[in-house]
């Protein structure tokens, strides 16, 4: 089993997402022609089939849609962190855009609940990749 966390491979269509993340900005891919937003990023607009895209920076404010608390057996790097919380968050600016990220809380993780208001933060993995995670307001 791998010892480090699995790292997202950067591709042409999501390069800007990772560049923005490294600057601690959350960005959402939009079609440059019909302007429809989409997540996860991909090659083609599913609404108008354009391959032209652009990126909009968003606040990262979100609502917790659901979450899990993984327990062993896990990949070694996550087993060390267990118990931790992984959530699916819904962006305030885009009701139907949901993103996976770790949920951190100063208080007991047992108090985390669906509907909690969240703010985005970033964790640097290497020079090219920072992962978004969310904290409770």
């Amino acid at each position, binding site marked *: *089993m*791998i010892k*480090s*966390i*699995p*790292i*997202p*491979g950067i*591709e042409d269509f999501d390069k800007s997402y990772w560049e923005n993340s490294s600057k601690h900005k959350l960005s959402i891919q939009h079609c440059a022609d019909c302007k429809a937003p989409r*997540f*996860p990023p991909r090659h083609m607009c*599913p609404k108008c089939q354009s391959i032209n895209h652009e990126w909009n920076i968003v606040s990262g404010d979100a609502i917790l*849609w*659901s*979450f*899990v*608390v*993984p*327990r062993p*057996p*896990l*990949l070694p790097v*996550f087993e060390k*962190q267990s*118990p*931790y919380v*992984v959530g*699916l968050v819904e962006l305030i600016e885009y009701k*139907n*855009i*949901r*993103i*996976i*990220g*770790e949920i951190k809380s100063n208080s007991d993780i047992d108090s985390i609940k*669906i509907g909690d208001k969240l703010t985005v933060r970033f964790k640097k*993995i290497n020079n090219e*990749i920072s*992962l978004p*995670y969310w904290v409770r307001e």
Partner: protein
Amino acid sequence: MLKDQTAIVGIGETEFSKSIDSTELNLACKAIKIALDDAGINPDQVDALGSFTYEETPEFEIARNLGFGNLTYWSQAPYGGGASCAAIGQVAMAIASGVANVGVVWRSRKRGDPSSRMWSHTNEQIFDHWKWSRPSGLVRPVDESSMLMRRYMHQYNYDRKDLASVSIALRKYANSNERALMHNKSLSLSDYMNARMISDPLCLFDNCLESDGAIAIVITSVKMAESLNNIPAIIHSYSQGMSRDHQLMTHYHSDDPLESSSYVTASNLWSLSDYSPKDVDVAQIYDAFSPMIPFSLEAYDFCPKGEALKLINEGLIDVDGGLPVNTSGGSLSEVYLHGMNLVTEGVKQIRGLANVQIKNAKLALVTTCDATPNAAVLLKGE
């Protein structure tokens, strides 16, 4: 039309165990030979094959070990737990259309050893859609399913105690099935509530078994079935299904993540059928994780959204509850072979020879994985 043109005429199962000292190819050959003997068909009559893209025993090895004749059709269905009924449907269509006459579908798998867990082989760098979830620690299929279960519990006001009724109902069936891995182990509500969590809110008993074994089935035309040994399980209707904006195992980005690809399969399956959900005598619902049973019962329109767990708590899926489900114990308590045991149990029910036989079972639904692109078949007796 495919309707009522083909039938499952033979079934074969090896022993089921945590660990079998044999190769997948050896197990596959044994299961297929048992299935052909059960059907009363000579191996040299086989001309079509169907398997899973995840299957590691190749067609040519199977064919030259078993002594098949010249093959004219083979296909593989993708997406693991979503594949069994898709592989069956594709072979059935090949036979109904006249491309081939006798088909074998098989799955051989050694998954008893923890080192064979697929998630444990996660690469250092991820280029597929899992790059959007695994780096954040959502790594295993159980984590991915648990995410939807917690949302469902929140939306419809359920808790772990409600979900316990799924695993407990299936364990009762396994306790009556000598071949089930959990045959000798009872499961009480307190066992369930005190179990270790695997991905909260899912605990150990919400997970399928890790097991070794192989299962095969034989498909022919209904006309050929008339001259064979067994009561045929006629393939009445079949469909695959992949919903708009589907994302494999992490179907989180569509308008409603709780509306899975099963809704697509179900809608087409019923529209191609002469029957409706109320006509089903027994259902075999894919159950790698317990939430897939309530999710699928709602998708296949046995009850309104949000009501499945309430009905399961009231006994719906028990032997006398109106819709018996996974009557062999399923993947949770009999064996996990990517759902192929659900197919053979559906056939046994139609033949009237199941361990826990549902009286006058004439119509059996068999489904595949709710969290992947999937498929289903409706089997009927004569």
